[in-house]
Structure formats: C-alpha cells, structure tokens
C-alpha cells in the first residue's frame, strides 16, 4: 500500500524548491533556521531579565515574550499558519478554554490580587 502514497508531486521536491515548499509545507530549511535564531534571541532576552533589573517591565516583558515564542513555534514549526484553519480552531479552542477556565479557577483563590 505504500506505493499509493508516493505522489509525483513529492518526488519532484528537491532541496532547492524553496518557494514551492513555502506554499505547501511552510518554510524552507533555511527559513526554519532563521526562525530558530529569532527564538534563541528571544530566549536570550528572557534570561537577561535574571541579570538586569527591568523594573516595572519585568513581568510584562516575560509574559509577552512567552506568548510570542509560543505562537512562533506553533505557527511555523507546527505549520499551523500554513495548514487548514480547522487545526487552528481545534488546538486554540483547547488552549483558550484552558486559559479561561484556569484563570477563573485561580481568580477564585484571589491569586491575581495577591500579586499587585
């Protein structure tokens, strides 16, 4: 049965067919490396908060960077940006439900008030 999966389209793929790949499967290998470099840079900023005092920006910086990294991995490495929207709906509905429910849960413990 494995023969049925060998489409001519895939056999034609070469390492240099970057533009073609970007349309169908996300990014080219080189672009993946760029994304990884960006992620590494963001991680470096995150870690720098440990050494440098960001003052009032400490928390927002970390939270924003966390979300940006998360969305980047999901969109590019997991191809969600290039894939069918149904996958996005399924995954993000779980994620947003989790965020909403557990924030509500922590709120009943007055978790967010303690922080100030």
């Amino acid at each position, binding site marked *: 049965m494995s023969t049925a999966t060998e489409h001519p389209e895939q056999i034609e793929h070469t390492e240099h067919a970057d533009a073609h790949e970007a349309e169908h499967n996300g990014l080219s290998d080189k672009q993946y490396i760029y994304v990884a470099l960006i992620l590494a840079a963001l991680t470096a900023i995150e870690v720098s908060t440990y050494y440098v005092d960001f003052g009032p920006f400490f928390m927002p910086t970390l939270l924003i960077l966390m979300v940006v990294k998360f969305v980047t991995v999901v969109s590019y490495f997991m191809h969600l940006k290039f894939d069918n929207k149904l996958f996005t709906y399924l995954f993000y509905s779980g994620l947003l*439900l989790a965020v909403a429910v557990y924030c*509500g849960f922590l709120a009943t413990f007055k978790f967010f008030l303690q922080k100030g």
Partner: protein
Amino acid sequence: MTIIDRPSTDVAVIGGAPTGVKPSEALGVFKRPAASTSWRDWVVTVDHKKLGIMYGVTAFFFFIVGGVEALLIRLQLISPDGKVLNADQYNQMFTMHATTMVFLFVMPMAAAFANYFVPLQIGARDVAFPRLNAFGFWCFLFGGLFLNSSWFLGGGADGGWFMYAPNSSTLFSPSHGIDFWTLGLQITGIASLTGAINLIVTVLNMRAPGMKMMRMPIFTWMVLVTQFLLLFAIPVITVALFLLTFQRSFDATFFDVASGADPLLWQHLFWIFGHPEVYIMILPSFGIISEVIPVFSKKPLFGYPIVAMSGAAIGFVGWGVWAHHMFASGLGPVSVTVFSMATMAIAVPTGVKIVNWVMTMWGGKLSFTVPMLFAIALVVQFTIGGLSGVTHAVAPSDTQQTDTYYIVAHFHYVLFGGAVFGLFSGFYYWWPKMFRRQLSEGLGKWNFWLMLIGMNLTFGPMHILGLQGQPRRMMVWTEARAGEGLFNFGFWNRVASIGSFVLGIGVLLFLVNVIYTHKSKKVAISPLDPWDARTLEWMTHNPPQEHNFDTIPTVGHLDEFFHRKYETDASTHSVKQVHSAEEVMAELNSHPDEHIHMPSRSYWPILLALSLPVIGYGLIYNRMLMAVGAALVLLTMFGWSMEPSTSPDEDFDPPAPGEGGGHTKELSPLG
C-alpha cells in the same frame, strides 16, 4: 527482530519465521485474526456495531450492579435504626453506586449508542480509528472491573463520588478503596478520551457525500458536542486523580492541610470536570429523544438549527458554571455572583430545547409507542429536575439545600428522569435496527409505567425529605427524631424505599422483555422500517452488514430517508408517501459500491488495554508488577504501531460475499 516475525500457524503463537513473506508485510507478532462467527471474533473485532453492542451489554451489567447498590441503600433507610449495612459499608455503597452509575453506566451506554449509530447516521462504513475504538471499549471494561474488584480486596471507595479532600486521604480512608477508584477512573478516562477523539474525527471527516454539518441527524450533533466536552474535561479529572494518587501512594502534600494545602483545589478540579460531565451524561439522551419525538409525531423536528446550536451553547456555557457545586464552600461574594448568573443563563438553552420538543409534538399525529412514552416522560421529568436545579442557582437558597436530600432528588430527576429515560427510549426505538426484532410493546408499557411510577415514588419524596433537613449520605434515622405529621422522615423514607423496588421491578421487566422478544416464537421479524423513520441508519439492512451500506448514499436533505420516501405536493402542501422503505433501499443498492475493504481485526487493542490494570494493581500492591505492566504497555504499543490497520490482501482471509478485494485503507500507527 525475530519477535515480530509472523508465525506460520493460524493461532496466536510467538516465534517461527515465515518464508516467502516480504519484510514490509511481515508486521506484528501474531497472525492477524481472521473473520469468524465464534466468540473469538468479539474479542478481536474492530466493527463499530459489535463494539457498540459490547458497550451496551457491559454498561447494562454495571447498571444492575449500581442498581443493587442503590436498593441496598434504600433497604437500609426503609425502617428506623436500619441494620442492613454498617456505617462503613454504607459509605462504600453510596460512593460506588454513584461512581458506577455515572462512569460505568450512563457514559458508556451513551457511548454504545454513539458507536453504533453515529457512523450509520452520517453514512460511514466505520469510525475513523477502528482499533482505537476497540481499545476504548476494552479500557472501559477492564477499568470498570478493576474498580469493582476493590469489593473483594478490602472494600470499595468510601469518600462519596466526588471524593472531597482531605476526607479522601489515607488518614480518613486507610483501605485501598480510593486507590482502586482513582486508578480505575484513570483507565476508563483513557476510554473516554480516545472515544472522543475517534468520534469527533468520524463526524468531521467521514460524512457521506452531501451530508453537511447542518444536515446531520440531531443525535449525531449532540454526540459531537458531548465528545468535545469529554475531550476537554477528561484531562482535568486526570490531573485531579493523579494528584490524589500521588498524595495517597507517594505522600505528596497536595491536599494535606497541615502543610498549608487548600482542599478547595480538589473541589475546583473535580467540578471543572464534573460540570461538563453533567452535560456529557444528558446531551446524548437529548439527542435520542430529538430523533424519537419527530418520528412518532410524524413531523420534522421543530427548529432543527436551534436545537443543534442550543446543544452547542449548553456545551460552551457548561464550562463556566462549575463553582455552583461549591456555593457553600466560602468562595466569596464575587465568585458566587458570577457563577450564580452563569448557572441561571445555562437554563435558557435547555429551556429552548424543551420548547422545541413540545412544539414538535404540537399538532402532530402522535403515536404513543414505548420509545415515545419514554421520550415524553423525559421532557416532563427533566423539566421538574431542571426547575429544582434552577433553585440551586440561587446561591442563598442553595446554601440551605447543599448536602440535603433535596440535591439527591434534583439530580436523580435529571439523571434518571432525563438521561436514563432517554437511553431506554433509545433501546426501544433502535432495538429492531440492532437485533431485527421489535421489543414487545405490551411488556414495554409495563416496563415504562413501573419505571415512571417507581422513579417518582423514589425521588419525589426526597424533595420533602431534603427541605425537612435530612442530610445526604445519612445512614440511619431514628423513630424518636423523625418528626411527626405528614412531613416526618419515617413516612417519606418508607415511600422512597418502596418506590425504589417498584423501579427495580420496572428495570427487571426490560430484561424480561428482551428475553421474551428473542426467545418467543410469536415475535415476528421486524419490518425494515418499523417506525417510518427519517434518518440514514434506517436505510440499510436490520441489522446492518459489516460494511453498513452496500452503496454510500448521497445526501441532499436533512432527514434524507424521509425525503426519499415522501414527496410534498407543492399546491396543497400535503406530504404523501411515494416509496416504501424497501423500494428506497432497492434503488439505493441497485449499483452497489465496489472494492469495499473494511478494517481488519486485531489483537492489540485488548492486549494494550489488559496491560493497564496490571500497572494499577502494581501501584497498589507491588511496584515490580508496575514495571511489568509498563513493559507490557510498551511492547503492545510497538506491536500495534507496526501493524497496518488493514492487512494487505494476501494477508487477508477471503472477503465476505459482496466485498471486493483490491484496495486497502491505510492508517498510521495512531489508528
């Protein structure tokens, strides 16, 4: 890699290198089981219809177990100073009664109907992941048996079905009952989660041509909503159960108040799961009666899109009301207000559904068959239970009712009067589809009326008992403190106990009916379309062959089957039958599909599921056994992942008549 070479014999024996099999085809430890008519076929089957029946039989067995537990509870309370059970046994009895009914009866019975009828209703040949489906069933069976094995190993769980901390810690419950409970539910949870993924993918991806989402039968819609609730609710109870297991088995401190823990953590996690769970139990029954009422009113369902969307709305809002189970726990005014309002809001879509059912019946040609009687009873009884439910949404009133029999009365009206009546309606409605014979209407009416009277006699008085202050889980009452006059505890407890036995006889009559229908020579084979039904599952044989449809129908309407039988006269707006069911089917099957190749039977689902209780027993008794179980899980998963979901043709036993060879379906290891 000798272990994974296929043996040359028919039976499941490890070893023996085959000759002449190309490496890419020699997959799996065992030779694939072949089709047969013996009991072995049920062990290795991946057919959604067989699995549906197995779900049903197992769930009904647990229904009887849970029912006996309930009768023992009522027997204890029938007279003052009851001596049937001691306090410890009583605690185990109500805990296991609720656990069994919720997790081992209502949920899997709904899964039985979903498994059997969703693929048929959407015109599919099987579910998306047939082996995963089989795995789910075996997880449910072994999880349920594991859970109930605690009765013979030192006593069942005794903390109430929601197992509040810190009462569930080893200090207050030193027996292994709660360990069995947490691990057993963990295993049945796997069944629910895999079932949810499976059914959602099936509904999204395997509809017949033309079967748009808004043309799906309403039962399929409600199952879809239910499976989404399961998909997202099961992981929450998984977390809670793990925390409790770690606390009891490894001395973690999660619910240890001395370490500063907050017992409310358990309550939140449990009810974040527990409230969607309530809708998980009721929505499939809503779906069943939304099929039954139109058929026996000879009218289309009133406001189909509204019924579908209100189901989805219930599913969504159901996530924002969990803390109404915790109004008495001191959440603070803001939380109480928010959850109180959300709870009142959720009554709206539920009320919408009730209006739709009533409007469907309004002006219809009603025929009061047994399935219709159960469906109408659901509308009435669920409304009563729903109204008492709204009184709980009012937080000040709820703080008076919490942990009284009023609550017990409420949830039995919605669960027994709602969910269970819906399931019984489904039994009577779909029995001829599944087993070719129609259950006796005469016995069925006795069954129905005894259950209806029994349930109202049992649970009706509990409203009074609760408002009089009888606490939930109270194991004994004394004549001296029962009070006097019409509202004394003694009288109403006796009524409730007598009612419970009437209810028990009613349920027993169902079994009598099943035996009578299948043993008596007088019961004729049911016609193809006994109820003049409206949906696709009736457009094939009774019972359907393994591949469901000879020809996959192309769907052009909601209620496709109805539209193939009937035509509307545009000038008079009257509807008249132009084709019989047999004619519709003959026309559909005039060009049967070629090359139908069904998924192949497999040993792996049952083997993988069998390794899970090994881990469970290991965790409780011997950590070495746990390692053995884990190793078994790993090995069976490897075996599973290397077996294609459909065996290649040369590997497959001669196909049944009518099934072409030719092509195979292909699934990755996940399937």
